[in-house]
């Protein structure tokens, strides 16, 4: 984090209010509304492709949602890839089945862990989403609980909402007017957890996300790995507005995102104050300046004109210098104007603070300024594109310029890899929700809640492992978070072995083997158990465990003892060790007499070589010490 430029904001002073939303996929056997498995596929395995268009519909209250409405500005074709693991439900060709009981159970367990109030009847709703990521044009979502909390270093953070939802389809290609989606992910159950706006700093946001992530994984029933958990962050500062930054995939970006959004809002407010002082305005109509650029050397403009495009410009009174003002590292007010224009289907806009550039000359600029009656205090924006799109885009950018006069617009933004964000869409209103009439409500009974088995949290379990088995904090943490934790407890109890050896056998060693390309996925609980049995009977040295596991992974049907034999590790007992040690000590008598006790080091290597790692190191060194003593005293 040290290489980052810190914003140096005093978060209390700027009135930072933040909350996070976590979307976590559940590891249920089947999807939320059909019997299909919750597996992702290679796009190349798709066995059917079809396409649809979506149009917004009015909700039960007679309103069209504003986010949905904006989506129709762009009428796009949605192409869907179907698989032998998806069905007519994902294709929106069959009504959904009932809410998956297994997913409901997992959601209830999580709600319980978060100390939430659970509703008595779970109703599935349709949340309008017409960006194509849901074939139906809505995401099915159900409210499960509210009024929960988690403990953090900064005190309790409220958990306002937990919903059970279906995951959207995976976007695999964006061809501007055509979007391609993969249906494998559509319908995988996920929980959405929203905190109260109790988060006080970027570091706190990260901590809360970490705690929630740990609790979710503690259930052992959530999906792991890239893309299975996503965080959205809500941020506002005093005088700013609620902005939702969506799609944060990496936990370690959360603090940076909160920090940069706070910074953005502070900077936009500063720009607003300056604009006010100057009496700035953004009320001009777009003006056609195509003729000025007929012979322009700008490749972008020539490209647009070739496609029968136009060049439109609009004056921004009193904006000079401020359009180029930075709001986040590398992103200016002009970038925000451009984001909006891009949504209307153009590549971007030009603004006066970045010109002359892109082949647009001082001469061109003078002519444009003249045409717009723009003084030196005024700025302007310009777009080159086919007529209809150009005017839509410029109007969208003008709208954003007018918002700059007011302050920070409420909106949904998309997280960028560096922690900054770009415009995505307006904040959705509540009008986008209406009942999913195909899915009956689920009654949550007291009996159902009593039957739930709440898991031990990883943090609690790790503390217990340290105390009960004397593991160090690192090994305890690894073992507590492993799906093998029950096997660990069983094996420690069954064999009289040091707990650390069992952790290495179950966790560290297979990880290292996997790294070397060993198919450790073939190893079962029985393999591990049999290995540790040989170890506890002294038939295998702990140094030999990686070799035996390697053989077993390659030939899973083999007995552990046979595997040890094949690895050349079997059958070395105490008496054989003694024989080998005696003979080596005898051979190297001179060395022993010269070096005395210190001869143990070099001799150890010779013995182990002779035994090819088949004997326990501790036994060998103990035997060596005894034989050296005997020789020296004898």
């Amino acid at each position, binding site marked *: 984090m040290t290489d980052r430029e810190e914003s140096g904001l005093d978060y209390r002073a700027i009135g930072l209010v933040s909350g996070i939303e976590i979307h976590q996929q559940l590891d249920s056997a089947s999807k939320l509304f059909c019997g299909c498995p919750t597996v992702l596929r290679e796009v190349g395995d798709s066995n059917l492709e079809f*396409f649809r268009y979506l149009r917004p519909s009015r909700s039960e209250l007679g309103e069209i949602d504003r986010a949905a409405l904006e989506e129709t500005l762009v009428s796009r074709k949605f192409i869907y890839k179907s698989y032998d693991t998806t069905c007519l439900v994902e294709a929106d060709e*069959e009504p959904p089945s009932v809410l998956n009981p297994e997913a409901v159970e997992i959601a209830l367990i999580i709600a319980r862990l978060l100390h939430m109030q659970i509703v008595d009847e779970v109703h599935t709703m349709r949340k309008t989403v017409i960006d194509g990521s849901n074939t139906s044009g809505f995401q099915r979502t159900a409210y499960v609980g509210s009024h929960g909390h988690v403990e953090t270093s900064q005190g309790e953070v409220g958990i306002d*909402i937990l919903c059970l939802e279906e995951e959207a389809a995976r976007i695999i290609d964006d061809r501007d007017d055509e979007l391609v989606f993969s249906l494998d992910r559509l319908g995988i159950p996920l929980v959405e957890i929203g905190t109260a706006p109790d988060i006080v700093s970027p570091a706190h946001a990260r901590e809360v996300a970490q705690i929630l992530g740990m609790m979710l994984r503690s259930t052992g029933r959530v999906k792991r790995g890239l893309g299975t958990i996503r965080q959205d962050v809500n941020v506002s500062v005093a005088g700013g507005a609620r902005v939702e930054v969506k799609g944060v995939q990496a936990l370690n970006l959360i603090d940076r995102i909160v920090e940069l959004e706070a910074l953005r809002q502070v900077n936009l407010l500063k720009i607003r104050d300056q604009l006010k002082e100057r009496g700035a305005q953004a009320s001009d109509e777009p003006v056609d300046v195509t003729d000025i650029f007929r012979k322009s050397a700008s490749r972008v403009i020539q490209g647009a004109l070739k496609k029968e495009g136009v060049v439109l410009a609009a004056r921004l009174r009193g904006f000079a210098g401020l359009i180029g003002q930075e709001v986040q590292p590398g992103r200016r007010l002009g970038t925000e104007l451009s984001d909006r224009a891009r949504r209307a289907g153009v590549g971007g806009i030009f603004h006066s603070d970045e010109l002359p550039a892109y082949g647009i000359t001082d001469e061109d600029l003078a002519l444009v300024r003249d045409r717009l009656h723009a003084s030196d205090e005024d700025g302007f924006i310009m777009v080159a594109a086919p007529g209809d799109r150009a005017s839509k885009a410029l109007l969208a950018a003008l709208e954003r310029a007018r918002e700059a006069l007011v302050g920070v617009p409420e909106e949904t933004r998309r997280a960028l890899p560096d922690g900054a964000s770009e415009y995505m869409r307006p904040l959705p209103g509540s009008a986008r929700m209406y009942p999913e009439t195909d899915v009956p409500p689920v009654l949550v009974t007291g009996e159902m809640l009593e039957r739930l088995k709440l898991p031990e949290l990883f943090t609690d379990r790790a503390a217990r492992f340290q105390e009960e088995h004397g593991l160090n904090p690192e090994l305890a943490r690894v073992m507590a978070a492993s799906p093998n934790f029950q096997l660990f407890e069983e094996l420690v109890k069954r064999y009289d072995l040091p707990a650390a050896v069992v952790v290495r056998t179950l966790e560290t060693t297979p990880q290292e083997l996997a790294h070397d390309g060993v198919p450790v996925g073939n190893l079962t609980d029985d393999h591990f158990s049999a290995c540790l049995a040989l170890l506890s009977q002294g038939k295998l040295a702990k140094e030999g465990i990686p070799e035996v596991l390697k053989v077993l992974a390659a030939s899973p049907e083999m007995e552990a003892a046979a595997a040890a034999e094949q690895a050349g590790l079997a059958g070395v007992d105490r008496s054989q060790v003694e024989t080998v040690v005696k003979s080596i000590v005898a051979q190297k008598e001179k060395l022993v007499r010269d070096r005395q006790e210190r001869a143990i080091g070099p001799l150890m290597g010779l013995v182990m070589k002779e035994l090819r790692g088949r004997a326990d190191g501790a036994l060998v060194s103990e035997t060596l010490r005894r034989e050296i003593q005997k020789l020296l005293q004898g």
Partner: protein
Amino acid sequence: MDLGDKISVLCGKTSYEGILMPSRSDNTVIKLKNGYNVGLRADKIELLEKGQSVSLPQKALHKREGLPQVSILSTGGTIASKVDYRTGAVTSQFSAGEIISAIPELEEIASYNARVIYTILSENMRAEYWIELARAVAAEIRSGSQGVIVTHGTDTMTYTAAALSFMIRTPVPIVMVGSQRSSDRPSSDAAMNAICAATVAVSDIAEVSLVMHAGTSDDYCSIHRGTRVRKMHTSRRDAFQSVNRQPIGRVDYLSRKIQTFGSYRRRGQTDLELSDRLEPRCALVKYVPGASSAILDYYVDAGYRGIVLEGTGLGHVSSEWIPSIKRAADAGIPVVVTSQCLRGRICDRVYDTGRYMLAAGAVEGRDMLPEVALVKMMWALGNTSGREEALEVMSRSMAGEISDSTPATV
């Protein structure tokens, strides 16, 4: 307290606020401020504010100059349905006018007269409604409509299509249309089906046709002949398929171009003729292995006037049924044989059982769909006098429902 009121609900120590919604259980269902509905076992409910009724703004129809005049007759069904705010269920209550205002592209194709004929779910359809509808369609054509669109629930749409096919000889297109995904959802097939139906309504295809999605994609709709189409899937968009014959053609959704696959009656080729009598006392009897012939006897004794058998394979029933067939024929009841195979032609001259069925008085339904044969039987009995005449009508193609040759490509 009424639905739509703003209330507060206390459950234990937790209190919720929201709008009172309909409930199907003992719990109180409210819509929270964030839009979610939840069901709560309320300890205490308090009224916060009386609700206000919301009415959907409805666009007035404005007629464009120079476009053909098309009538939209609505009968209910999914294409004309929306979520009922009070019951939370999908119900049929969109008027034809609301359909047009929800699908603005329709106004580029024609100007419309919209009439609600009735608002019923298509499973509640019956012969007397077909008659009423046929009369309404004929009235629209008489008063100058250049095409008629009938919106219909998809469950029994093909029966209605067959009924209109027999009852009306039409000089203009009569187009049945529906939707398999309700029109209140963004992915509904209603808009594309309606736009394609309007395109056919202003075309040269003066037939009773049924226009619906041809595949699962939003690319084009098939134009099915009203007597050759069957609903072959419970839920898919492309549930409707022509059987034993190619569809008349297809309409491309975006370009609105029509491509035809064979001959059809052209606009103005015939004068309007309405023969609107139906004999509703007709039955379609499906034969299954072991079924008792008493089933057939029942219809005869109950006063049914015509019977269509849906036999196995080439058109067979158990030989035990032969006396009952003879009994029906002797009672002056025409018995026509169709096949549960749906695809293919009846041939009762191949096996003994078939020959005995024919000898007992049954008549081959040729390559007619069973349901179409049933509707045709109602129409034949309504417009003829007696068994012989009716059977003569039954074995002749009246509206493209029978052909002498089946192309190898269907």
